[in-house]
Protein backbone atom coordinates (compact mmCIF):
# COMPACT_ATOMS: atom_id res chain seq x y z
CA UNK A 1 0.00 0.00 0.00
CA UNK A 2 3.08 2.17 0.17
CA UNK A 3 2.82 2.82 -3.51
CA UNK A 4 -0.80 3.95 -3.32
CA UNK A 5 0.02 6.32 -0.47
CA UNK A 6 2.96 7.78 -2.32
CA UNK A 7 0.89 8.06 -5.45
CA UNK A 8 -1.84 9.91 -3.57
CA UNK A 9 0.76 12.38 -2.38
CA UNK A 10 2.02 12.61 -5.93
CA UNK A 11 -1.42 13.55 -7.16
CA UNK A 12 -1.57 16.25 -4.52
CA UNK A 13 1.61 17.68 -6.06
CA UNK A 14 0.50 17.26 -9.65
CA UNK A 15 -3.00 18.61 -9.24
CA UNK A 16 -1.99 22.19 -8.69
CA UNK A 17 -3.02 24.78 -11.21
CA UNK A 18 0.55 25.45 -12.31
CA UNK A 19 1.53 21.81 -12.74
CA UNK A 20 -1.62 20.93 -14.65
CA UNK A 21 -1.00 23.88 -16.91
CA UNK A 22 2.60 22.83 -17.51
CA UNK A 23 1.55 19.26 -18.24
CA UNK A 24 -1.01 20.54 -20.75
CA UNK A 25 1.56 22.83 -22.37
CA UNK A 26 4.12 20.01 -22.45
CA UNK A 27 1.65 17.60 -24.05
CA UNK A 28 0.72 20.15 -26.67
CA UNK A 29 4.31 21.12 -27.51
CA UNK A 30 5.40 17.48 -27.39
CA UNK A 31 2.77 16.36 -29.86
CA UNK A 32 3.83 19.13 -32.26
CA UNK A 33 7.51 18.33 -31.77
CA UNK A 34 6.87 14.65 -32.38
CA UNK A 35 4.77 15.32 -35.45
CA UNK A 36 7.34 17.55 -37.14
CA UNK A 37 9.72 15.47 -39.19
CA UNK A 38 13.24 16.22 -38.10
CA UNK A 39 12.26 17.46 -34.69
CA UNK A 40 12.09 14.54 -32.30
CA UNK A 41 11.87 14.00 -28.57
CA UNK A 42 15.54 14.44 -27.71
CA UNK A 43 15.82 17.57 -29.88
CA UNK A 44 12.66 19.03 -28.49
CA UNK A 45 13.50 18.35 -24.88
CA UNK A 46 17.06 19.58 -25.42
CA UNK A 47 15.90 22.95 -26.71
CA UNK A 48 13.37 23.34 -23.92
CA UNK A 49 15.69 22.52 -20.98
CA UNK A 50 17.66 25.77 -21.00
CA UNK A 51 14.37 27.61 -21.33
CA UNK A 52 12.75 25.81 -18.41
CA UNK A 53 15.90 26.48 -16.45
CA UNK A 54 16.15 30.19 -17.20
CA UNK A 55 12.48 30.62 -16.43
CA UNK A 56 13.39 29.56 -12.92
CA UNK A 57 10.99 26.64 -12.73
CA UNK A 58 11.61 24.47 -9.65
CA UNK A 59 12.49 20.82 -10.14
CA UNK A 60 9.07 19.20 -10.07
CA UNK A 61 7.30 21.57 -12.47
CA UNK A 62 10.29 21.54 -14.84
CA UNK A 63 10.36 17.76 -14.83
CA UNK A 64 6.61 17.57 -15.39
CA UNK A 65 6.84 19.97 -18.34
CA UNK A 66 9.67 18.11 -20.02
CA UNK A 67 8.46 14.55 -19.48
CA UNK A 68 5.08 15.64 -20.83
CA UNK A 69 6.93 16.85 -23.91
CA UNK A 70 8.68 13.47 -24.07
CA UNK A 71 5.42 11.52 -23.80
CA UNK A 72 3.72 13.90 -26.21
CA UNK A 73 6.44 13.44 -28.81
CA UNK A 74 5.91 9.69 -28.65
CA UNK A 75 2.25 10.26 -29.51
CA UNK A 76 2.93 12.90 -32.13
CA UNK A 77 5.52 10.92 -34.08
CA UNK A 78 2.82 8.76 -35.61
CA UNK A 79 0.95 11.63 -37.25
CA UNK A 80 3.44 12.33 -40.01
CA UNK A 81 4.24 8.60 -40.31
CA UNK A 82 0.63 7.92 -41.22
CA UNK A 83 -0.14 11.01 -43.26
CA UNK A 84 3.02 11.61 -45.26
CA UNK A 85 5.03 8.42 -44.80
CA UNK A 86 7.85 10.31 -43.07
CA UNK A 87 8.39 9.30 -39.46
CA UNK A 88 8.12 12.33 -37.20
CA UNK A 89 10.86 10.78 -35.09
CA UNK A 90 12.88 7.61 -35.14
CA UNK A 91 10.61 5.39 -33.00
CA UNK A 92 7.72 6.18 -35.36
CA UNK A 93 9.58 4.53 -38.23
CA UNK A 94 7.75 1.23 -37.89
CA UNK A 95 4.42 3.07 -37.83
CA UNK A 96 4.87 4.07 -41.46
CA UNK A 97 4.84 0.44 -42.58
CA UNK A 98 1.13 -0.13 -42.08
CA UNK A 99 0.01 3.38 -41.19
CA UNK A 100 0.72 5.01 -44.53
CA UNK A 101 -0.93 2.25 -46.59
CA UNK A 102 -4.04 2.69 -44.44
CA UNK A 103 -4.04 6.41 -45.18
CA UNK A 104 -3.67 5.67 -48.89
CA UNK A 105 -6.79 3.49 -48.65
CA UNK A 106 -8.68 6.50 -47.34
CA UNK A 107 -8.63 5.27 -43.76
CA UNK A 108 -6.30 7.97 -42.38
CA UNK A 109 -8.77 9.04 -39.72
CA UNK A 110 -9.24 5.51 -38.52
CA UNK A 111 -5.48 4.93 -38.50
CA UNK A 112 -4.84 8.09 -36.47
CA UNK A 113 -7.54 7.22 -33.96
CA UNK A 114 -6.42 3.63 -33.55
CA UNK A 115 -2.74 4.54 -33.20
CA UNK A 116 -3.69 7.26 -30.73
CA UNK A 117 -5.50 4.69 -28.65
CA UNK A 118 -2.58 2.26 -28.95
CA UNK A 119 -0.24 5.03 -27.78
CA UNK A 120 -2.48 5.61 -24.81
CA UNK A 121 -2.62 1.93 -23.84
CA UNK A 122 1.15 1.63 -24.19
CA UNK A 123 2.09 4.65 -22.14
CA UNK A 124 -0.62 4.21 -19.54
CA UNK A 125 0.43 0.65 -18.74
CA UNK A 126 4.07 1.71 -18.79
CA UNK A 127 3.37 4.51 -16.30
CA UNK A 128 1.78 1.95 -13.97
CA UNK A 129 4.96 -0.05 -14.50
CA UNK A 130 7.08 2.93 -13.45
CA UNK A 131 5.06 3.28 -10.24
CA UNK A 132 5.42 -0.43 -9.46
CA UNK A 133 8.97 -1.22 -10.52
CA UNK A 134 10.97 1.95 -9.92
CA UNK A 135 10.71 1.56 -6.10
CA UNK A 136 11.77 -2.08 -6.43
CA UNK A 137 14.82 -1.16 -8.45
CA UNK A 138 15.64 1.45 -5.83
CA UNK A 139 15.84 -1.30 -3.21
CA UNK A 140 18.31 -3.11 -5.44
CA UNK A 141 20.23 0.10 -5.97
CA UNK A 142 20.83 0.38 -2.23
CA UNK A 143 23.16 -2.62 -2.58
CA UNK A 144 25.35 -0.64 -4.97
CA UNK A 145 28.72 0.59 -3.79
CA UNK A 146 31.17 2.68 -5.84
CA UNK A 147 32.57 -0.41 -7.58
CA UNK A 148 29.09 -1.56 -8.61
CA UNK A 149 28.21 1.90 -9.85
CA UNK A 150 31.36 2.01 -11.93
CA UNK A 151 30.40 -1.34 -13.45
CA UNK A 152 26.87 -0.08 -14.04
CA UNK A 153 28.10 3.00 -15.90
CA UNK A 154 30.32 0.80 -18.04
CA UNK A 155 27.29 -1.39 -18.68
CA UNK A 156 25.28 1.63 -19.79
CA UNK A 157 27.96 2.62 -22.30
CA UNK A 158 28.51 -0.92 -23.53
CA UNK A 159 24.86 -1.48 -24.28
CA UNK A 160 23.97 2.00 -25.47
CA UNK A 161 24.90 1.38 -29.06
CA UNK A 162 22.47 -1.50 -28.90
CA UNK A 163 21.14 -3.39 -31.85
CA UNK A 164 20.62 -0.22 -33.86
CA UNK A 165 24.32 0.61 -33.78
CA UNK A 166 25.99 -0.39 -37.00
CA UNK A 167 29.51 -0.33 -35.71
CA UNK A 168 30.41 -0.95 -32.08
CA UNK A 169 33.85 0.59 -32.54
CA UNK A 170 32.15 3.87 -33.44
CA UNK A 171 29.88 3.61 -30.40
CA UNK A 172 32.97 3.12 -28.19
CA UNK A 173 34.66 6.04 -29.91
CA UNK A 174 31.63 8.23 -29.25
CA UNK A 175 31.61 7.25 -25.57
CA UNK A 176 35.33 8.02 -25.25
CA UNK A 177 34.83 11.43 -26.89
CA UNK A 178 32.04 12.27 -24.47
CA UNK A 179 33.99 11.06 -21.43
CA UNK A 180 37.03 12.99 -22.61
CA UNK A 181 35.00 16.19 -22.87
CA UNK A 182 33.73 15.59 -19.33
CA UNK A 183 37.33 15.54 -18.04
CA UNK A 184 37.85 19.17 -19.08
CA UNK A 185 37.86 21.57 -16.14
CA UNK A 186 38.89 21.49 -12.52
CA UNK A 187 39.12 18.03 -11.01
CA UNK A 188 36.65 17.95 -8.14
CA UNK A 189 38.65 15.87 -5.68
CA UNK A 190 42.14 17.35 -6.04
CA UNK A 191 41.45 20.80 -7.45
CA UNK A 192 43.93 20.45 -10.31
CA UNK A 193 43.12 21.80 -13.76
CA UNK A 194 42.75 19.29 -16.53
CA UNK A 195 42.75 20.02 -20.28
CA UNK A 196 41.84 23.68 -19.76
CA UNK A 197 44.74 25.10 -21.80
CA UNK A 198 44.68 28.09 -19.48
CA UNK A 199 41.29 29.16 -20.86
CA UNK A 200 39.14 30.69 -18.10
CA UNK A 201 35.91 29.63 -19.76
CA UNK A 202 36.96 26.00 -19.52
CA UNK A 203 37.66 25.96 -15.78
CA UNK A 204 34.09 24.95 -14.98
CA UNK A 205 34.14 22.36 -17.70
CA UNK A 206 31.86 22.29 -20.69
CA UNK A 207 28.20 22.72 -19.85
CA UNK A 208 26.42 19.63 -21.07
CA UNK A 209 23.40 21.64 -22.12
CA UNK A 210 25.56 23.52 -24.62
CA UNK A 211 26.79 20.20 -25.98
CA UNK A 212 23.33 18.66 -26.11
CA UNK A 213 21.63 21.57 -27.87
CA UNK A 214 24.53 21.86 -30.32
CA UNK A 215 24.82 18.17 -31.12
CA UNK A 216 21.09 17.59 -31.50
CA UNK A 217 19.35 20.79 -32.54
CA UNK A 218 21.99 22.80 -34.41
CA UNK A 219 23.27 19.78 -36.35
CA UNK A 220 19.67 19.17 -37.41
CA UNK A 221 19.61 22.62 -39.02
CA UNK A 222 22.72 21.72 -41.04
CA UNK A 223 21.17 18.43 -42.14
CA UNK A 224 18.15 20.34 -43.36
CA UNK A 225 20.45 22.69 -45.27
CA UNK A 226 21.84 19.65 -47.02
CA UNK A 227 18.49 18.06 -47.87
CA UNK A 228 16.52 21.21 -48.56
CA UNK A 229 13.40 20.81 -50.59
CA UNK A 230 12.22 17.81 -48.60
CA UNK A 231 9.36 19.93 -47.36
CA UNK A 232 6.43 18.56 -45.48
CA UNK A 233 3.06 18.76 -47.17
CA UNK A 234 -0.13 16.88 -46.72
CA UNK A 235 -2.18 15.61 -49.57
CA UNK A 236 -4.37 13.34 -47.51
CA UNK A 237 -7.79 14.52 -46.47
CA UNK A 238 -8.85 13.42 -43.02
CA UNK A 239 -12.05 11.44 -42.89
CA UNK A 240 -13.97 10.92 -39.68
CA UNK A 241 -11.69 10.14 -36.79
CA UNK A 242 -13.31 7.12 -35.23
CA UNK A 243 -12.44 3.50 -34.62
CA UNK A 244 -14.91 0.91 -35.91
CA UNK A 245 -15.61 -1.76 -33.32
CA UNK A 246 -14.35 -4.53 -35.59
CA UNK A 247 -10.99 -2.77 -35.95
CA UNK A 248 -10.73 -2.39 -32.21
CA UNK A 249 -11.43 -6.07 -31.60
CA UNK A 250 -8.92 -7.10 -34.19
CA UNK A 251 -6.12 -5.01 -32.77
CA UNK A 252 -6.58 -5.42 -29.02
CA UNK A 253 -4.20 -8.39 -28.86
CA UNK A 254 -1.62 -6.52 -30.89
CA UNK A 255 -1.78 -3.57 -28.51
CA UNK A 256 -1.32 -5.81 -25.47
CA UNK A 257 1.66 -7.64 -26.97
CA UNK A 258 3.20 -4.40 -28.22
CA UNK A 259 2.86 -2.83 -24.79
CA UNK A 260 4.53 -5.75 -23.02
CA UNK A 261 7.41 -5.98 -25.43
CA UNK A 262 7.92 -2.23 -25.58
CA UNK A 263 7.97 -1.90 -21.81
CA UNK A 264 10.65 -4.55 -21.38
CA UNK A 265 12.70 -3.00 -24.19
CA UNK A 266 12.42 0.37 -22.49
CA UNK A 267 13.62 -0.83 -19.10
CA UNK A 268 16.64 -2.63 -20.54
CA UNK A 269 19.60 -0.30 -20.88
CA UNK A 270 20.48 0.79 -24.36
CA UNK A 271 17.34 -0.35 -26.09
CA UNK A 272 15.10 2.69 -26.21
CA UNK A 273 11.84 3.30 -27.98
CA UNK A 274 13.08 2.60 -31.52
CA UNK A 275 13.99 -0.93 -30.63
CA UNK A 276 10.77 -1.30 -28.66
CA UNK A 277 8.62 -0.47 -31.66
CA UNK A 278 10.80 -2.52 -33.98
CA UNK A 279 10.59 -5.69 -31.89
CA UNK A 280 6.88 -5.14 -31.23
CA UNK A 281 6.22 -4.97 -34.97
CA UNK A 282 8.40 -7.95 -35.81
CA UNK A 283 6.83 -10.15 -33.15
CA UNK A 284 3.33 -9.07 -34.09
CA UNK A 285 4.02 -9.87 -37.70
CA UNK A 286 5.23 -13.33 -36.75
CA UNK A 287 2.20 -13.96 -34.50
CA UNK A 288 -0.63 -12.52 -36.58
CA UNK A 289 0.39 -12.16 -40.19
CA UNK A 290 -1.25 -15.25 -41.66
CA UNK A 291 -2.54 -13.75 -44.91
CA UNK A 292 0.42 -11.55 -45.73
CA UNK A 293 -1.52 -8.36 -45.03
CA UNK A 294 1.24 -6.72 -42.96
CA UNK A 295 2.82 -3.80 -44.72
CA UNK A 296 -0.28 -3.31 -46.83
CA UNK A 297 -2.37 -1.57 -44.20
CA UNK A 298 -3.05 -4.08 -41.47
CA UNK A 299 -4.44 -2.43 -38.33
CA UNK A 300 -2.51 -4.83 -36.11
CA UNK A 301 0.74 -3.78 -37.75
CA UNK A 302 -0.13 -0.23 -36.80
CA UNK A 303 -1.29 -0.86 -33.23
CA UNK A 304 1.65 -3.02 -32.13
CA UNK A 305 4.60 -0.70 -32.83
CA UNK A 306 2.70 2.36 -31.69
CA UNK A 307 1.85 0.74 -28.34
CA UNK A 308 5.43 -0.54 -28.23
CA UNK A 309 7.18 2.80 -28.66
CA UNK A 310 5.03 4.53 -26.07
CA UNK A 311 5.46 1.71 -23.58
CA UNK A 312 9.22 1.78 -23.93
CA UNK A 313 9.26 5.55 -23.47
CA UNK A 314 7.67 4.97 -20.05
CA UNK A 315 9.86 1.98 -19.26
CA UNK A 316 13.01 3.95 -20.01
CA UNK A 317 12.19 6.30 -17.15
CA UNK A 318 12.70 3.48 -14.62
CA UNK A 319 16.51 3.08 -14.82
CA UNK A 320 16.89 6.84 -15.23
CA UNK A 321 14.98 7.65 -12.04
CA UNK A 322 16.06 4.78 -9.82
CA UNK A 323 19.69 4.30 -10.86
CA UNK A 324 20.54 7.57 -12.54
CA UNK A 325 21.58 5.68 -15.64
CA UNK A 326 19.49 6.55 -18.69
CA UNK A 327 18.90 3.95 -21.34
CA UNK A 328 18.05 6.20 -24.27
CA UNK A 329 18.77 9.55 -25.82
CA UNK A 330 15.81 11.45 -24.45
CA UNK A 331 16.14 10.04 -20.94
CA UNK A 332 19.80 11.11 -21.08
CA UNK A 333 18.60 14.61 -21.91
CA UNK A 334 16.10 14.46 -19.03
CA UNK A 335 18.91 13.37 -16.73
CA UNK A 336 20.85 16.42 -17.87
CA UNK A 337 18.01 18.57 -16.68
CA UNK A 338 17.88 16.89 -13.28
CA UNK A 339 21.61 17.34 -12.84
CA UNK A 340 21.31 21.01 -13.80
CA UNK A 341 18.73 21.41 -11.07
CA UNK A 342 21.13 19.77 -8.61
CA UNK A 343 19.02 16.67 -8.24
CA UNK A 344 20.87 13.39 -8.52
CA UNK A 345 18.56 10.54 -9.48
CA UNK A 346 18.99 7.26 -7.68
CA UNK A 347 17.88 5.78 -4.38
CA UNK A 348 18.39 9.07 -2.59
CA UNK A 349 15.95 10.80 -4.89
CA UNK A 350 13.19 8.47 -3.72
CA UNK A 351 13.88 9.03 -0.04
CA UNK A 352 14.91 12.69 -0.10
CA UNK A 353 12.62 14.08 -2.79
CA UNK A 354 9.62 11.72 -2.95
CA UNK A 355 7.50 14.67 -4.05
CA UNK A 356 9.57 14.99 -7.23
CA UNK A 357 9.30 11.32 -8.16
CA UNK A 358 5.67 10.74 -7.27
CA UNK A 359 4.57 14.14 -8.48
CA UNK A 360 6.13 13.24 -11.80
CA UNK A 361 4.46 9.84 -11.96
CA UNK A 362 1.08 11.30 -11.09
CA UNK A 363 1.56 14.04 -13.67
CA UNK A 364 2.33 11.41 -16.28
CA UNK A 365 -0.97 9.65 -15.56
CA UNK A 366 -2.77 12.95 -16.03
CA UNK A 367 -0.72 13.81 -19.13
CA UNK A 368 -1.77 10.54 -20.70
CA UNK A 369 -5.43 11.48 -20.53
CA UNK A 370 -4.67 14.94 -21.91
CA UNK A 371 -2.73 13.35 -24.74
CA UNK A 372 -5.54 10.94 -25.51
CA UNK A 373 -7.90 13.89 -25.88
CA UNK A 374 -5.46 15.88 -27.98
CA UNK A 375 -4.55 12.98 -30.17
CA UNK A 376 -7.94 11.64 -31.13
CA UNK A 377 -10.55 14.41 -31.31
CA UNK A 378 -8.08 17.21 -31.95
CA UNK A 379 -5.63 15.38 -34.18
CA UNK A 380 -6.71 17.43 -37.20
CA UNK A 381 -5.20 20.49 -35.58
CA UNK A 382 -1.80 18.82 -35.29
CA UNK A 383 -2.02 17.48 -38.81
CA UNK A 384 -2.23 21.08 -39.95
CA UNK A 385 1.01 21.87 -38.09
CA UNK A 386 2.77 19.60 -40.55
CA UNK A 387 2.16 22.20 -43.21
CA UNK A 388 4.66 24.54 -41.58
CA UNK A 389 7.53 24.33 -44.04
CA UNK A 390 11.08 23.54 -42.97
CA UNK A 391 12.26 26.91 -44.27
CA UNK A 392 10.38 28.57 -41.43
CA UNK A 393 10.64 25.80 -38.85
CA UNK A 394 14.40 25.26 -38.93
CA UNK A 395 15.47 28.92 -38.55
CA UNK A 396 13.05 29.12 -35.63
CA UNK A 397 14.61 26.02 -34.05
CA UNK A 398 18.09 27.51 -34.42
CA UNK A 399 17.07 30.84 -32.95
CA UNK A 400 15.25 29.28 -29.99
CA UNK A 401 18.37 27.19 -29.29
CA UNK A 402 20.43 30.38 -29.14
CA UNK A 403 17.89 32.03 -26.85
CA UNK A 404 18.05 29.08 -24.46
CA UNK A 405 21.82 28.84 -24.27
CA UNK A 406 22.22 32.62 -24.08
CA UNK A 407 19.72 32.55 -21.25
CA UNK A 408 21.73 30.12 -19.12
CA UNK A 409 25.20 31.43 -19.93
CA UNK A 410 24.92 34.94 -21.30
CA UNK A 411 28.28 34.45 -22.96
CA UNK A 412 29.44 34.54 -26.56
CA UNK A 413 31.93 31.78 -25.84
CA UNK A 414 29.22 29.26 -24.99
CA UNK A 415 27.25 30.17 -28.10
CA UNK A 416 30.29 29.61 -30.28
CA UNK A 417 30.88 26.33 -28.50
CA UNK A 418 27.30 25.35 -29.29
CA UNK A 419 27.78 26.09 -33.00
CA UNK A 420 31.01 24.08 -32.83
CA UNK A 421 29.13 21.14 -31.33
CA UNK A 422 26.55 21.56 -34.07
CA UNK A 423 29.20 21.19 -36.78
CA UNK A 424 30.77 18.24 -34.96
CA UNK A 425 27.34 16.66 -34.56
CA UNK A 426 26.66 17.03 -38.28
CA UNK A 427 29.95 15.38 -39.25
CA UNK A 428 29.53 12.58 -36.70
CA UNK A 429 26.00 11.89 -37.92
CA UNK A 430 27.19 11.71 -41.51
CA UNK A 431 29.87 9.25 -40.41
CA UNK A 432 27.27 7.24 -38.47
CA UNK A 433 28.98 7.80 -35.14
CA UNK A 434 26.09 7.67 -32.63
CA UNK A 435 25.57 10.88 -30.65
CA UNK A 436 23.86 9.46 -27.57
CA UNK A 437 27.05 7.91 -26.12
CA UNK A 438 28.78 11.29 -26.55
CA UNK A 439 26.03 12.98 -24.56
CA UNK A 440 26.01 10.26 -21.92
CA UNK A 441 29.78 10.51 -21.63
CA UNK A 442 29.66 14.25 -21.01
CA UNK A 443 26.85 13.74 -18.50
CA UNK A 444 28.19 10.81 -16.55
CA UNK A 445 31.95 11.16 -17.01
CA UNK A 446 32.63 12.85 -13.70
CA UNK A 447 30.37 10.55 -11.70
CA UNK A 448 31.94 7.54 -13.34
CA UNK A 449 35.43 8.72 -12.42
CA UNK A 450 34.35 9.63 -8.89
CA UNK A 451 33.01 6.13 -8.32
CA UNK A 452 36.17 4.54 -9.68
CA UNK A 453 38.35 6.69 -7.45
CA UNK A 454 36.17 6.11 -4.42
CA UNK A 455 36.27 2.36 -5.00
CA UNK A 456 40.05 2.35 -5.25
CA UNK A 457 40.32 4.61 -2.24
CA UNK A 458 38.38 2.02 -0.23
CA UNK A 459 40.58 -0.82 -1.47
CA UNK A 460 43.78 1.19 -1.17
CA UNK A 461 44.52 0.99 -4.85
CA UNK A 462 43.65 -2.66 -5.36
CA UNK A 463 41.84 -2.91 -8.71
CA UNK A 464 40.23 -6.26 -7.90
CA UNK A 465 37.59 -4.44 -5.84
CA UNK A 466 35.93 -3.63 -9.16
CA UNK A 467 34.87 -7.24 -9.53
CA UNK A 468 34.78 -7.98 -5.82
CA UNK A 469 31.06 -8.74 -5.43
CA UNK A 470 28.66 -11.07 -7.25
CA UNK A 471 26.56 -8.05 -8.23
CA UNK A 472 29.56 -6.35 -9.82
CA UNK A 473 30.55 -9.53 -11.64
CA UNK A 474 27.01 -9.83 -12.95
CA UNK A 475 27.08 -6.24 -14.21
CA UNK A 476 30.42 -6.76 -15.94
CA UNK A 477 29.16 -9.95 -17.57
CA UNK A 478 26.05 -8.14 -18.76
CA UNK A 479 28.20 -5.29 -20.08
CA UNK A 480 30.44 -7.62 -22.07
CA UNK A 481 27.47 -9.53 -23.50
CA UNK A 482 25.74 -6.25 -24.27
CA UNK A 483 28.74 -4.98 -26.18
CA UNK A 484 29.52 -8.17 -28.07
CA UNK A 485 26.01 -9.45 -28.80
CA UNK A 486 25.01 -6.65 -31.21
CA UNK A 487 27.98 -7.53 -33.41
CA UNK A 488 26.47 -10.99 -33.88
CA UNK A 489 22.74 -10.36 -33.51
CA UNK A 490 22.87 -7.04 -35.33
CA UNK A 491 24.15 -8.76 -38.43
CA UNK A 492 21.04 -10.95 -38.42
CA UNK A 493 18.51 -8.28 -37.53
CA UNK A 494 19.73 -5.22 -39.35
CA UNK A 495 19.00 -6.13 -42.94
CA UNK A 496 15.34 -6.33 -41.97
CA UNK A 497 15.25 -2.85 -40.49
CA UNK A 498 13.80 -0.58 -43.12
CA UNK A 499 16.56 1.45 -44.67
CA UNK A 500 15.36 4.90 -43.78
CA UNK A 501 17.48 7.99 -43.59
CA UNK A 502 18.95 7.11 -40.20
CA UNK A 503 21.23 10.12 -40.21
CA UNK A 504 18.37 12.56 -40.07
CA UNK A 505 16.20 10.63 -37.65
CA UNK A 506 16.24 11.93 -34.14
CA UNK A 507 17.35 9.35 -31.60
CA UNK A 508 14.76 8.58 -28.97
Amino acid at each position, binding site marked *: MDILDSLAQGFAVALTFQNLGLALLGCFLGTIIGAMPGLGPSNGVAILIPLAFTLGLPATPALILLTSVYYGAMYGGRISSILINIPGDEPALMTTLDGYPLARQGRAGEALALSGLASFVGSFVATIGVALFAPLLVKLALLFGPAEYFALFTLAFATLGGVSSKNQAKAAMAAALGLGIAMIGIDGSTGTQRFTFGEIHLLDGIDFLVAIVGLFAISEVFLFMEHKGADSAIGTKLDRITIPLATLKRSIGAMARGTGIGFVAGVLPGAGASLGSFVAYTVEKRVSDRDGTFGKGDVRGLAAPEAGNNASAGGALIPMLSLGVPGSGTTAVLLAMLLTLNITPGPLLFTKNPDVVWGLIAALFIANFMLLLMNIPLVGLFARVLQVPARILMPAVAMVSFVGIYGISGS*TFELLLMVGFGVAGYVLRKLEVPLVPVILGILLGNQMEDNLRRALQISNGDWSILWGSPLAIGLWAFAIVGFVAPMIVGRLVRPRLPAAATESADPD
Partner: protein
Amino acid sequence: MIGSDRILGAVGLILGVAFIWGATLIETGFMVDALGPKTFPVIIGCVLVLSSGYVLVRPDPEPAWPALGRAAEILGAVAVLVGYTFALEPVGFVIATAVAAALLSWRLGSTPLWGAVSGIGISLGIYVIFHLILGLSLARGPLGF
Protein backbone atom coordinates in the same frame (compact mmCIF):
# COMPACT_ATOMS: atom_id res chain seq x y z
CA MET B 1 40.80 9.04 -52.54
CA ILE B 2 41.12 8.37 -48.83
CA GLY B 3 37.91 7.07 -47.22
CA SER B 4 36.10 9.25 -44.69
CA ASP B 5 36.30 6.55 -42.04
CA ARG B 6 40.06 6.30 -42.42
CA ILE B 7 40.31 10.03 -41.79
CA LEU B 8 37.94 9.68 -38.82
CA GLY B 9 40.03 6.81 -37.45
CA ALA B 10 43.27 8.70 -37.92
CA VAL B 11 41.90 11.85 -36.29
CA GLY B 12 40.56 9.78 -33.38
CA LEU B 13 43.89 8.03 -33.01
CA ILE B 14 45.83 11.29 -32.89
CA LEU B 15 43.30 12.77 -30.50
CA GLY B 16 43.54 9.69 -28.27
CA VAL B 17 47.33 9.77 -28.14
CA ALA B 18 47.30 13.52 -27.49
CA PHE B 19 44.74 12.97 -24.74
CA ILE B 20 46.87 10.34 -23.01
CA TRP B 21 49.92 12.57 -23.33
CA GLY B 22 47.93 15.52 -21.95
CA ALA B 23 46.75 13.35 -19.07
CA THR B 24 50.30 12.46 -18.04
CA LEU B 25 51.11 16.16 -17.89
CA ILE B 26 48.36 16.88 -15.34
CA GLU B 27 49.98 18.29 -12.24
CA THR B 28 49.17 16.42 -9.07
CA GLY B 29 48.88 18.53 -5.97
CA PHE B 30 49.47 17.60 -2.36
CA MET B 31 46.09 16.03 -1.79
CA VAL B 32 46.04 12.88 -3.84
CA ASP B 33 43.68 9.93 -3.55
CA ALA B 34 44.74 6.40 -4.35
CA LEU B 35 44.05 6.79 -8.05
CA GLY B 36 44.78 10.44 -8.68
CA PRO B 37 43.50 12.68 -11.46
CA LYS B 38 45.49 11.08 -14.28
CA THR B 39 44.43 7.46 -14.48
CA PHE B 40 40.84 7.77 -15.68
CA PRO B 41 41.75 10.15 -18.54
CA VAL B 42 44.45 7.70 -19.58
CA ILE B 43 41.88 4.88 -19.67
CA ILE B 44 39.57 7.03 -21.80
CA GLY B 45 42.44 7.84 -24.14
CA CYS B 46 43.17 4.13 -24.52
CA VAL B 47 39.53 3.40 -25.41
CA LEU B 48 39.67 6.18 -27.99
CA VAL B 49 42.92 4.87 -29.46
CA LEU B 50 41.65 1.28 -29.67
CA SER B 51 38.27 2.14 -31.18
CA SER B 52 39.75 4.66 -33.63
CA GLY B 53 42.36 2.12 -34.63
CA TYR B 54 39.61 -0.35 -35.46
CA VAL B 55 37.73 2.24 -37.53
CA LEU B 56 41.00 3.09 -39.32
CA VAL B 57 41.70 -0.54 -40.20
CA ARG B 58 38.12 -1.65 -40.96
CA PRO B 59 36.30 1.41 -42.33
CA ASP B 60 32.57 1.40 -43.13
CA PRO B 61 31.30 2.13 -46.64
CA GLU B 62 31.61 5.76 -47.65
CA PRO B 63 28.68 7.95 -46.51
CA ALA B 64 26.86 10.16 -49.01
CA TRP B 65 28.56 13.53 -48.59
CA PRO B 66 26.70 16.56 -49.91
CA ALA B 67 27.67 17.87 -53.33
CA LEU B 68 29.89 20.92 -53.42
CA GLY B 69 27.01 23.39 -53.71
CA ARG B 70 25.18 21.97 -50.72
CA ALA B 71 28.38 21.81 -48.68
CA ALA B 72 28.84 25.51 -49.40
CA GLU B 73 25.28 26.10 -48.14
CA ILE B 74 26.13 24.35 -44.88
CA LEU B 75 29.30 26.39 -44.50
CA GLY B 76 27.22 29.47 -45.20
CA ALA B 77 24.81 28.46 -42.44
CA VAL B 78 27.73 28.01 -40.04
CA ALA B 79 28.98 31.46 -41.02
CA VAL B 80 25.54 32.97 -40.42
CA LEU B 81 25.34 31.41 -36.95
CA VAL B 82 28.87 32.49 -36.00
CA GLY B 83 28.21 35.99 -37.30
CA TYR B 84 24.94 36.03 -35.38
CA THR B 85 26.77 35.12 -32.18
CA PHE B 86 29.11 38.07 -32.53
CA ALA B 87 26.38 40.49 -33.63
CA LEU B 88 24.00 39.55 -30.85
CA GLU B 89 25.30 41.85 -28.14
CA PRO B 90 26.41 44.88 -30.20
CA VAL B 91 23.25 44.97 -32.35
CA GLY B 92 20.62 43.64 -29.97
CA PHE B 93 18.44 40.56 -30.10
CA VAL B 94 15.58 41.61 -32.33
CA ILE B 95 17.59 42.95 -35.27
CA ALA B 96 20.32 40.29 -35.17
CA THR B 97 17.78 37.49 -34.94
CA ALA B 98 15.61 38.88 -37.74
CA VAL B 99 18.59 39.07 -40.08
CA ALA B 100 20.00 35.65 -39.18
CA ALA B 101 16.63 33.91 -39.40
CA ALA B 102 15.87 35.65 -42.70
CA LEU B 103 19.17 34.50 -44.18
CA LEU B 104 18.61 30.91 -43.05
CA SER B 105 15.04 30.89 -44.27
CA TRP B 106 16.13 32.28 -47.65
CA ARG B 107 18.82 29.63 -48.04
CA LEU B 108 16.31 26.93 -47.08
CA GLY B 109 14.22 27.86 -50.08
CA SER B 110 12.11 30.92 -49.32
CA THR B 111 12.04 33.76 -51.80
CA PRO B 112 14.11 36.71 -50.50
CA LEU B 113 10.97 38.66 -49.65
CA TRP B 114 9.31 35.78 -47.79
CA GLY B 115 12.62 35.01 -46.12
CA ALA B 116 12.71 38.55 -44.76
CA VAL B 117 9.11 38.30 -43.62
CA SER B 118 9.70 34.98 -41.84
CA GLY B 119 12.89 36.33 -40.28
CA ILE B 120 11.10 39.33 -38.83
CA GLY B 121 8.19 37.12 -37.78
CA ILE B 122 10.43 34.60 -36.00
CA SER B 123 12.39 37.35 -34.27
CA LEU B 124 9.33 39.26 -33.07
CA GLY B 125 7.57 36.02 -32.13
CA ILE B 126 10.45 34.90 -29.92
CA TYR B 127 10.79 38.39 -28.46
CA VAL B 128 7.12 38.57 -27.55
CA ILE B 129 6.82 35.02 -26.18
CA PHE B 130 10.12 34.68 -24.37
CA HIS B 131 10.87 38.25 -23.34
CA LEU B 132 7.58 40.07 -22.95
CA ILE B 133 5.45 37.15 -21.74
CA LEU B 134 7.93 34.83 -20.02
CA GLY B 135 10.36 37.50 -18.89
CA LEU B 136 13.53 35.84 -20.18
CA SER B 137 16.47 38.20 -20.56
CA LEU B 138 17.65 38.48 -24.16
CA ALA B 139 20.64 40.38 -25.49
CA ARG B 140 19.90 44.12 -25.32
CA GLY B 141 21.40 46.16 -28.08
CA PRO B 142 22.08 49.91 -28.09
CA LEU B 143 18.42 50.47 -28.99
CA GLY B 144 17.19 48.58 -25.93
CA PHE B 145 15.81 45.53 -27.70
